[in-house]
């Protein structure tokens, strides 16, 4: 370990940091006694649910706490400099030279009225470069974050860039100052799986080059494990587990870490094989007085000791510490992510009954085309969903999956093509659908905040749905079916958590016993721990009612978990469609292969194979739309002729020039099946 002149360790050292907020009810500690060290060039991941103190900690590192927050004890040292002792003028200088922070929402970090180039040049000018020197340096900065055609990017305004490109520009800006500490606060939340992977790969590639201490904050343990050297798990303001990323992921020693891992569906895992284990309850609020272990109220292992005494952070292995009285009782290597043991991804008829036995068709979409202005968003799509079947629709943002879903629900622009329900044409416009049809097709929206009327109580929301959809049960009964506590009925949505709101939205969709529920990214706005519960509810509702779903997500693992069949959409077209297992396992479309790779890459080392940048705009000419990004492109064919639709095994279609035998398959098969371990006792007997 290198040391600074005064003898302290180089890099970031946090010692006994406690941060408290002044509130109406006195001081509330949001972070308590945090200690960790990040060496230069090392990446440290901080994981936890919302409200566990991650953001507070990241703000405290740069002394960016809101006015009512303060560090009450502890030290933060960067390369020997005591950050908390700096005078205001020195602090400004230190921030300018040593600290870089990348926030979640890249778009809002950039000035919308300035072109990208001048914005970056401004930072360089502040660092003493001449106007001409700055102008020359900007393209180099953009090239460094692997942006294609830096000169053209520099001339654009932020809104002319995609989310991923914006985030790259922000990272470029953050790196300009050659910071000693780089804080990344949820840098990829809200980005697509493929874009997310590109950004993470970029950070991975740059970290040696940067040579800074990197702190990555996330609620996604899988993501952090993939990218970080070390991981700290935060719960209720305490560090509950810390260790090398691989150790923590492979053998979590704290029940919370283990529960976080169990809450995420892994690629290839099906709801028919494993129930997801949501973590019940919620993290303690800042300042909530907890005498014992903060996780005790939600912990299956908790006993009297846990309720009374806060466990100490104790060694649990090589550079691995855990804060738990019972960490010895939770050694389940198999319950964690195991990237070494490959298993066949099964397409067992018993696992997905409806996939093997084609159900009578409920919904048929034929040649559906939808345009916004002159942009064709959904291009000649044909799909069908059987009775009681879950069709998962996956694709990156802008692929047209939401427009397709809204068309089925009767929302959005008009266009050509037909949709029929049980053989009867479904009018494209909601206004022309009669009450019976409306009742049969319902929808769960992406944002739980916007989908519930903020002025109505839960009871009113459910009662209105029951009234208009002629439901036969009471609001209480409807809420109970969605595992909502009765006492929430008289609350308004602003008193509900994200997961509770989504449960209300699901309960509402089921008010009239629908035949088809369109779920538009219903879990993408939720924390992983909450996501599990909502997915499980959707699965249970489906099983109980036999309702069909059109389930949309950009997360392949989530789609694979719930769906019987999967359709992959790329720039308005379905490129791959078939039984879930076969689409994920292959032979599949090269685009599906890249999605699978992106999804799996989280669990191990970053994949070096690059599919290239997402090019904005839509190709108008003939040829395969994926060709510009495709690693298997056949020059002279793929970019000039439309690919044929190939059929594999009767009910799996792939739109590609490659023959079935040449299509990519999973090189390393995906782990599937019942994961033993912490979740075993909650196994559904019917599964």
């Amino acid at each position, binding site marked *: 370990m290198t040391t600074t002149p005064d003898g302290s360790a180089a890099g970031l050292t946090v010692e006994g940091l406690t941060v408290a907020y002044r*509130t109406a009810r006195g001081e509330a500690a949001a972070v308590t006694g945090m200690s960790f060290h990040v060496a230069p060039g090392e990446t440290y991941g901080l994981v936890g649910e919302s*409200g566990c*103190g991650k953001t507070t900690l990241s703000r405290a590192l740069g002394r960016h706490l809101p006015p009512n927050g303060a560090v009450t004890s502890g030290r933060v040292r960067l390369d020997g400099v005591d950050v908390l002792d700096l005078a205001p003028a020195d602090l400004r200088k230190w921030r300018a030279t040593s600290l870089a922070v990348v926030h*979640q929402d890249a778009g809002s970090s950039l000035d919308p009225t300035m072109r990208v180039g001048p914005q970056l040049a401004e930072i360089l000018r502040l660092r003493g470069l001449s106007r001409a020197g700055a102008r020359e340096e900007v393209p180099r900065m953009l090239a460094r974050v692997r942006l294609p055609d830096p000169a053209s990017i520099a001339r654009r305004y932020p809104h002319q860039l995609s989310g991923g490109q914006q985030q790259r520009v922000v990272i470029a800006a953050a790196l300009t100052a050659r910071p000693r500490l780089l804080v990344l606060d949820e840098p990829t939340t809200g980005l697509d799986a493929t874009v997310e992977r590109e950004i993470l790969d970029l950070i991975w590639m740059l970290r040696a080059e940067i040579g800074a201490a990197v702190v990555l904050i996330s609620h996604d343990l899988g993501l952090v494990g993939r990218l970080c050297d070390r991981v700290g798990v935060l719960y209720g303001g305490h560090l509950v587990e810390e260790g090398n990323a691989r150790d923590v992921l492979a053998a979590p020693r704290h029940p919370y870490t283990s529960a976080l891992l169990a809450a995420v569906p892994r690629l290839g895992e099906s709801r028919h094989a494993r129930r997801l284990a949501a973590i019940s309850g919620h993290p303690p609020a800042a300042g909530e007085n907890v005498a014992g272990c903060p996780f005790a109220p939600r912990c299956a292992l908790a006993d009297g000791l846990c309720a009374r005494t806060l466990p100490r952070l104790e060694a649990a292995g090589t550079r691995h510490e855990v804060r738990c009285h019972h960490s010895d009782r939770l050694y389940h290597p198999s319950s964690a992510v195991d990237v070494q043991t490959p298993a066949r991804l099964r397409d067992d008829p018993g696992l997905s009954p409806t996939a093997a036995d084609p159900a009578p068709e409920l919904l048929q979409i034929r040649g559906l085309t939808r345009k916004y202005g002159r942009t064709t968003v959904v291009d000649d799509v044909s799909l069908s969903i059987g009775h009681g079947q879950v069709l998962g629709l996956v694709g990156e943002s802008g692929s047209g999956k939401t427009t397709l879903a809204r068309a089925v629900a*009767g929302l959005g622009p008009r266009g050509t093509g037909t949709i029929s329900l049980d053989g009867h044409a479904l009018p494209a416009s*909601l206004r022309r659908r009669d009450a019976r049809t409306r009742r049969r097709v319902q*929808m769960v929206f992406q944002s739980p905040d916007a*989908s519930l*009327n903020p002025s109505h109580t839960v009871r009113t929301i459910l009662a209105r749905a029951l009234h208009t959809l002629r439901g036969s049960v009471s609001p209480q009964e409807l809420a109970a079916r969605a595992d909502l506590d009765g006492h929430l009925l008289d609350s308004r949505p602003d008193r509900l958590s994200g997961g509770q709101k989504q449960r209300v939205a699901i309960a509402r969709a089921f008010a009239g016993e629908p035949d088809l529920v369109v779920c538009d990214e219903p879990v993408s706005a939720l924390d992983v721990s909450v996501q599990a519960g909502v997915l499980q509810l959707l699965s249970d509702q489906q099983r109980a009612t036999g309702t069909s779903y059109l389930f949309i997500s950009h997360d392949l693992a989530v789609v694979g978990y719930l769906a019987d069949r999967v359709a992959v959409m790329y720039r308005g077209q379905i490129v791959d469609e078939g039984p879930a297992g076969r689409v994920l396992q292959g032979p599949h479309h090269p685009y599906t292969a890249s999605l699978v790779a992106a999804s799996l890459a989280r669990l191990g080392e970053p994949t070096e194979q690059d599919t290239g940048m997402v090019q904005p705009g839509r190709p108008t000419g003939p040829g395969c739309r994926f060709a510009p990004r495709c690693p298997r492109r056949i020059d002279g064919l793929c970019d000039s002729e439309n690919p044929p639709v190939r059929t594999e095994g009767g009910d799996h279609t792939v739109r590609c020039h490659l023959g079935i035998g040449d299509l990519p398959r999973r090189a390393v098969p995906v782990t599937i099946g019942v994961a033993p371990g912490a979740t075993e006792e909650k196994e559904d007997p019917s599964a």
Partner: protein
Amino acid sequence: MNAVTLPVRHATRPRFRVALGVGVVIVVFWAVVAVLWPHLAPYDPELQDPLHRFVPPGAGHLLGTDQFGRDTLSRMLAGARPVLQVAPPATALAVIAGTLVGLIAGTHGGLVDEIVMRVLDAVVVFPAIIAAVLLVALSGRSVTILVLVIAGSFVPIVARSVRAATLVEREKAYVEAARLRGEPSWSLMLREILPNVVTTVLVEATSRFGDAIFAAATLSFLGLGQPPGSPDWGASVSDNRLWLQLAPWTVLAPALAIASLVVGMALVADSLRGRWEAS
């Protein structure tokens, strides 16, 4: 955003509370005066006293007397009633009608929106004063005419604000959910959207109330309001402005009364707007 959720109380800033308090005191004062002026006024506001014309403010007449020897203070107090007979009903009418029009245009969009908004544009470009002159000429002076003219000229303003707020709400998923389950359009407007644009409606109501006071005074000043000789503030300013240099108090008293009520209402409106829009 992954913001830290904290039980932080958004305390109202003191400046807001003082402004609101002052505004409320002024408005309540004039409301009380409008009702109780017969008990508060030292003289009969109509009582002429030719021997004491243009008496400057002093012990006998606190705010002096006018050209007919009428007590200025009494007339100022009595003048609160005609203004407050016109402004509140005009505001209420404008807000109710404007909100409905705005909701209809905003919720339906398309052709309905286009037609409604163009009609409102036509109303806006037609000068309210000329409309008032026409109406008074046709049907004589009355409180009803005043209320209708003022309300009519405010409806487009209220409707535009409410429509803008409705357009924002209409795009939200809860409205789509309501359409999906087949709520009729009146229910969409009144049950789903209205409660969520009520802040806009309230802000409009308070702002328009201040404007209505001013409009009522203006119309009286132009002789379109109360009959001549009434103690109405606008009419008083108009009647006495000829003697402005001789007896400035006769103009200043009603003018200040108008100003204070308008300012008081504006203070209330601004503080409430700040509070509602922050919440």
